[in-house]
Every structure is written in structure tokens, then in C-alpha cells.
């Protein structure tokens, strides 16, 4: 596979390390009352869609960026690649 890195252009996916669903960006608030349930769902449950999937890839053998890649799990077609830090900031990442 080839991931079209927003800063570097096309790179072989072999340079990247895959983590999983991009929802892992949305770490729950540990101080909330339902933190135990929220963390369980955050860490363990997955939509696992057959189709478009937003997922995290880390450019370990490259620029060390974490990326949010939108990829179809049926065809492997990649429709969007974003810098995860930008996505996290836009989502209002803490601190």
C-alpha cells in the first residue's frame, strides 16, 4: 500500500506502523464519574467497519508523524490522509 503523506507525498506503507481506529485519539476524561466505563469502551470496543475506516498510522521510518488515514477496508482505497496532531487539536485535545 501507499500512503500519500500530506507533507512528504507517496510513501510505502511499510515505512509506517499501524495502531488502529482513530477514535483512540479521543481519550476519555479520567475524572468523570463514568470514567471506568468510558475507558473500557475507548480502549476495547471497535466499530470495525467494512468500508470507510479512519485509522492511525505512525511514520516510524520517516518523519515520525502520526497520521489519520481514511481507508476503505474492502478495497484499501485511501481517500484522505491528515496529520493526527492537527486532527487532535481540532478535536480539542487536552493541554
Amino acid at each position: 500500500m501507499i500512503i500519500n503523506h500530506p507533507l512528504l507525498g507517496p510513501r510505502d506503507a511499510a515505512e509506517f506502523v499501524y495502531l488502529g481506529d482513530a477514535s483512540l485519539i479521543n481519550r476519555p476524561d479520567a475524572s468523570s464519574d463514568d470514567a471506568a466505563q468510558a475507558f473500557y469502551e475507548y480502549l476495547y470496543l471497535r466499530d470495525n467497519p467494512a468500508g470507510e475506516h479512519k485509522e492511525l498510522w505512525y511514520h516510524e521510518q520517516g518523519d515520525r508523524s502520526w497520521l489519520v488515514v481514511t481507508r476503505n477496508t474492502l478495497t484499501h482505497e485511501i481517500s484522505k490522509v491528515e496529520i493526527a496532531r492537527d486532527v487532535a487539536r481540532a478535536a480539542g485535545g487536552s493541554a
Partner: protein
Amino acid sequence: MSQTNRIDGGLVNRNQSYSFKFNNETMHGYGGDTLASALIANGVKLVGRSFKYHRPRGIMSAGAEEANAMVQLRTGAYTEPNTRATVAELFDGLEAKSQNHRGPLGFDVMAANDFLSPFLSAGFYYKTFMWPKALWEKFYEPVIRASAGLGSLSGENDPDQYDKGFLHCDLLIIGAGPSGLAAALTAGRAGARVILADEDFIMGGRLNSETHTVDNMPGSTWAETATAELYQMENVRMMTRTTVYGAYDHGIFGALERCTDHLFDGSGKPRQILWRIYSKQSLLCAGSTERSIAFGNNDRPGIMMAGAVRSYVNRYGVTPGKRVSVFTNNDDGWRTAIDLKAKGIDVTAVIDTRSIPAPYNVPNAATIMGCRVIDTVGRKGIHTIMLSSGQTMKTDCLAVSGGWSPNVHLTCHQRGRPTWNEKQACFVPGGDLPVGMSVAGAANGDMTLQSALTAGHNGASSILSSLGMSDAGSKIASASEESAKVSAFWHVTESKSRAWVDLQNDVTTKDIGQSFREGFKSVEHLKRYTTLGMATDQGKTANVLGLAIMAECSGKTIEQTGTTIFRPPYTPIPMGALAGRARGKDFRPFRLTPSHKFAEEKNAAFVETGMWLRGQWYPIAGETHWRESCDREVRATRESVGVCDVTTLGKIDIQGRDAAAFLDRVYANTFGTLAVGKVRYGLMLREDGIVMDDGTTARMGEHHFVMTTTTANAVSVFRHMEFCRQCLWPNMDVHLISATEQWAQYAVAGPNSRKTLQNLVDKEFDISNEAFPFMACGEVTVAGGIPARLFRISFSGELAYEIAVPTRYGDSMIRAIMQAGEEYNIVPYGTEALGVMRIEKGHAAGNELCGTTTAANLGLGMMVSKKKDCIGNVLSQREGLNPEKPLQLVGFKPVDTSISLSAGAHFVTKGAEATMANDQGWMTSVAYSPILNHSIGLGLIEDGKNRMGEIVTAANPLKQSSVDVEIVSAHFVDPDGDRLRV
């Protein structure tokens, strides 16, 4: 043997005479021959045996689809099983043997299977061999295995070298036949970066096997001219002997280039190169493959595809027979008769299944329309055919054409399905092609030469425009007329004898019928139950025939019956090529520590730790067993001083205004309170609350920390922290960079470690206990100004330091430390002694940090701060991770101290039976303590902290042993830690 079947003409080089051996018999051929054409030249008909029935078989094709003529090529360690004679280039000195027979090829005793064939029908083995049960492994299976298989490996290491590489292009053209050449000319002239790859050793494809003309030249001459022009273009890479074998995601292709397979001796060059080709667009011009017709005994030597006969006659200048007949369902098959006549070879008859007027006139040959071949005679070489009309004819070669199947394989590699074209009676590429791929020529169903040339040109033109380029006005080449009329015909129903569909796996029409009757009707069931299409040719000639017969059984159309898809690779690829250089010591890189050279001089034994090589122990004269060395190193360190290279620990430089706050979140314990110039042990959890890693982190400045990780987790911890930094807390000002390679770091441990270092550290730095206490850190210089970092930390439990210098001084540094400690008899110690000392001190390491242990399990539960959020905090509080009687890390001591403990033993109540129901934990690490003079262990046992002094049994059923052990503190040596602080 002489070349009895060599005729005039062809593209072989008659000035280049090669001698070769087949089954030990010396023969001759020419440059430009394949092994198959050379065998035909020498009149050889019988070349191998089939898989199941061991039927005599000859050459049936002239290409990669060959299902019969597979040989064991070369000898000794170079021998290569299952090599298709039809694609093996002849070279001087080639040696080949036939395979899959017991006894000589002509008298294979396994051919008895052929006579037992009624009992060996589809799936017979699923229905028997079940009784008695024990005989399967002992008798039935060994017999089956010995008779199955084809060729043999030598059993020796592959002596050849292989290489790999990466290529990039705008357009990859797969196949250099008429459409591929036309496309390459158009795209190449327009300036696109083109790769043209073909599996053959000359370009031109079928142009070299046919008598067509292109632009008023013989087809092969046109191909040669086009090829020459393309070779002149800098933007075109021409790759012969290169099979594009797989289409992967996003325009990546796998290709195998055979560099030395056509040479007697590769003289040190890589035998083959596995290329990964990154293409923006690809054009599949892979041509088509002729298929057979199923009729009685259609597998005999001398029965050959009609197009292959033309290849042998026209390209190789050999004739497969002296009296040839043709059996066809299409106009193209007639060309064989015409070409043979042109070469002066007798054509006995042309038998056409179609009841139409003969499309061509073949002088002096019987032309029989609306007729079928129903059976053949000639066990080791066909000599007679029987026709549905009742006629019998003598013939020594039967050329069969059942029509052509486009080579759609690569269009299926991303699970695209070809679609059935009823008019052309073949599968053509479906709509779901791999991204960026288009198809032209016969592979796309353009079955005439002119249509292929046109499609190649047009395909390239439209690709050029999609790339934003325009074609340079290339004209479409014009070709001689030909007809491709075909009418589907699959099998001769009048045949009483077995009619083969898959020649190599011995699948007959009867097997397909039986498969249907038994309910194996879907194409996948058919394939799996009968093994149709599962042989080394992947059903290139058999699949369509099998499907059509299945469709007939079920009364459905082929379209309704479906198709199996093709999977990579297009043709089989040697394992050696897929591994490339990564074998032997080069399987993975080596990482060497800065003291490696020194360690070698000290005769160190080395151990692999991930990619690192670390000194395991350093034997001195007289030591014969590793334990002697290890014990001495431990004693010397605990009694005086030792030095160990700890460079392999991960070092991460952490800077930023939020660095301290960041560490508070990634570590379970607190770092915000750590003073500059101090070090703290840190415990890192995964988000699921399990211990991820541990290490020490030093505060070098207000906004600057240096973290160490375990050797094993250096990469994953860095990745995790980048995840935290970028994805979880993107607004924190914190920056990470690995400094593992920057510093050569040595642990100097033992009561005399300070004195040793005082000899080395420049005098202006006070490293006395008062000025530089336990857990201090700072920047110093050594040996008159060499910059260094000093940490007062200890893994051994002794007064100890770690000192780091820039890696370039690493070799000097180990020698300097040895020199500085000489007066204290300093020793280098290896990972074994390191391990012994950490077990003596009860420190958890890899065996305890095994990814399932919590901080509480390791006795570090207090470190998980309840005051702050950190990774893993919330989920570490789950019920299952906090049982009433948790596993706890404690020490174990054998009751009988003369007995050695074993890691991996399981604990049960003293004297209880060793069963999982009684299981209470396991021994994680053991060592012989030269300080205590007995074996000691660390282990995880339920409620261990509350069971001090209890005797339990450490069961080791693997060794049929069990040892009574006492639960003791994990701190075997200096439990109060006094020695650290002196």
C-alpha cells in the same frame, strides 16, 4: 542423439551449439532454444510423469502454462525441482532429469496407479484410510506422501545469491507482445517513464511464433525493430526475463528478473532480482493462453497445443512430429496446419468440431468438419487417433486448439472477477481492475493482431492523457489479416476413456461429474474436492474447461456457474528470491555496542538481544564453563568493582516547557517534583493498566529530561510517547528525540566504583557521596575535558554509577575505565552477571515485565499515583487486576540448597499434585548466586508477600522433577539497600 526433428528457420542461433544432458543422455541444441525445443529437436517425446496416475507425459505447450514437462534442472545443491522445460533457456552444459517416477522414466513402477484409477477417483482419500486409526501416520500417510510431491529439493543450502530492488515509473507495461510493444512505443516516444517487462528472453511475444506481418515486415522483425528503438530511449526501461507476478495495492507490482538462470555459471552475480515496481498506471498486455479440449486419452506425449506447435516450428525451428494432425474448434487452429505445410511437414488431417465449410484450404491433408477425436493410442507417444466419424488415423503429433483464454490473472489479484464473453468463448477482464490498471491486446479479448496493436497504442494514449501528457503522434502499426472465429467446444461426449481436464493433477471429466453428483457444485468446492487447477500451472489451461464441464453437469451457463479467481504469483517464485539478501547472518542487521571491539579482545561470548549483540560473559584463562566466568564477575563486582556496557538501553531526550507535566502523564509515578540534577525510577503502564516498561529518568534541566527504557522496548516506548504527544495532548510543548546511539554508556558498579571513577572524572567535579549522592546526575568531563554524563544509579544493588560519553569515545572509555579501576582489579561483566545481580536484588526484568503483570504484581503498586491521571491509571483499577490474592513477585530458595531451580516451574502447595487446578504461579527467573552459594529464584505466586517462609513445591513436569522451595524476600542481597548509599 541427433537433432532428428530440427528443421530450417526460426530465431535460434545455429552458430551457437550447446551440449546438454537429459536423463544422463547427451544431446545438442542451439542458442535461443528452450530445453523443451531442444528435446523436441532431439526427438524426445516422453519427458515426465503425471502427479497421481504417473501417466507418461510429453511437452504440451511452449510457455509458462506447461503442465507436463517439468524437470529437475541442474545438479547438487543447484538442483531446482519442477522447472518447466518450456521456459528453461538452454545453455551449454545444462543437465536435467525427469521427475516423479520410481525406476526409469520409461518404466515407472508407480504407473500401477493408472490401472487402479477407478478406485482413485475424486476425493477417494476422504473416504478411506481411517482404519485402524494408528495406521494413518505410520503407514497410509507415508505411502501417500512418498508417491505425491513432484521434484525434490537437494536438502542442501541454496548456494545462490539473490537481490531485490525498487523501481518507479509512470507506466508499467506487462508483456512485450504486439500490444505491449505498440504501447511502449507510443508512451516511450511521448517521454513517459516506462517499464516494459516480459517473461521471455526475447521481446515480441506471439509475433516470434507466428508468420504474420506487421508494417510489411515479418512480425518478429517488426518486434526486433521496435525493441531496438525502445532500448535507445532513456525514459524506457526494458526488462526481459522478467515476470510481473503480482498486482498489489495502489499500483505496486512484484516482478522477478532472472539474471543468471540462462547461464551455466552465474559468476557471483545474484541469480534473480525481486523487484517492487511502483507505477502510476499499468497496462496489462499479457496475451492469452490456448486451452485444450477434453477427449479420450488426450494426455499422451505428442498431443500438444496447436499454438505451441507453431512456436516450435516457426520460432525454434523444430517440429514436434513428422505427420501432424490438428484438432480444433476455431480458425486459429488451422494456422498450425498452414504453417507446418509451409515448412514442408506432413499434415495428416485437420479435424474441426464445427459443421461449417473449411475456412482454409490445406493441400494434401484431410479436412474433416463437424468431427471429433474420441480416443488416442500410444502410451509413450501418440501414434493413432480415432475419430467420431469412425475413422482411425496414424499421426505422431496431435495439435489441439480449444480456443484462447485471455491471461487475466493480474486483473484478479485484488479479487476482481473476470466476466464471461460468450461470443469469444472466454473470460475477459471484469470491471473491478486493480487501481491504475488497464488491459490491452489478447489479454483483453483483442484476439487478432491488428486489434492488439491498435489496443496497445490506444491504451497508452489514454494513459498518457490521464498523466497529463500527450502522445507524440505515434501511428498504429498495421498487420496482416487473420480470423479468430471460434465456437465453444469443451469435451467430446462420445469418448469412453478418461478425458483429462487438468493434466498435471490428473483431473478428468469423470471426476468433475462425480464431484457434481456428490454435491460439490460450487466452483470452489469443485476445485477443492477434485484439486482442479491447484497444480503448479494454477489451472492456466484447465480452469475454463473444468468450469464449462461443471456448467454442463448443472445445466447452467458458464456465467451462472462462476469462476475461481487467480491469486499471486502468476508463475511460481523461488523462496530464495522472496527472501533476497536476508538470510544467514544477514537475516537482520547487527547492532554493536561501543565496547564491542574491546569485548572481542577479551574473548567475550556474545548474546543476541533484539538486534544487539551484547557481551554475555568474559572468560579468562582457565575458565571452561560459563558459570565460572559469571560467578567470578559477580563476586569481583560485589567485592570491588566491575564495568558493564549498558548502551543498549533506550535513551530518549525530552525537552519542552511541558516536559515534566508530560512525564507525569506517561509515567505512573510523579516526575514534576523531581529536582534538577536528580534521577528517579519510573514505571510506565499501558492504557490497560499493565506494566509496559520501566527505567530511570534524569532531570538535566528545568525543561530537559533524559529517559532510559529497557533495551527491548526502546522503540515501542518512543512510539508510544510520540502517540501521547501528538494524538492525546497535542498542545503540550514537548519534543522527543532518541539519543540511544549518541552515548556510550557504562555501568560501573561495586564498592570501589567511586574510587575508580574518581581516577577518571576530572578533578573539578566532586563526586563524593555528599556532593553526588544516590540518585544524583550531572554533566562532567573525564580524562581532561571529554564531555560525559554521570548518573548515580544501580541495578546491581551496589554502590554504582552509569557514565556516558559521546559514542566516538566509547572504545576509549571502556579502556579508560579498565585502566582507572586496575588498582581495584576491575572486571568487565556481561549480561549473565548483570542478570544474576539483579535477581539477587529482586529487580524485575524482561521475564517479569511480560505484558501481563500489574504494578501490584511486581510489588510496585504504591507507585501508581492516585493523585493524578496517567496512562493506565483508570483501567488498572478493574476487579480482575485487583484480586483478593494477587500474584506477587517474591524470592524462592531451594529447601535443599544443593538443588538448582528451573525457570518456568509452576508452584503448587507443598506435596500437591502438579495440575492446573492446583497451580498458584510460576518461577520467572533463576540464577546461581555466588554470594549465597546456592540457586535462587524470583517468581510470581498468589498472595506471596503474606506467605514468607512457607514451603511450596516448584513443579517441573517437563523434567519430571519437583523441588521444594521456601518463599523468601526477593531481596536476597542487601535487603535494606545500605550498599547503594555509601
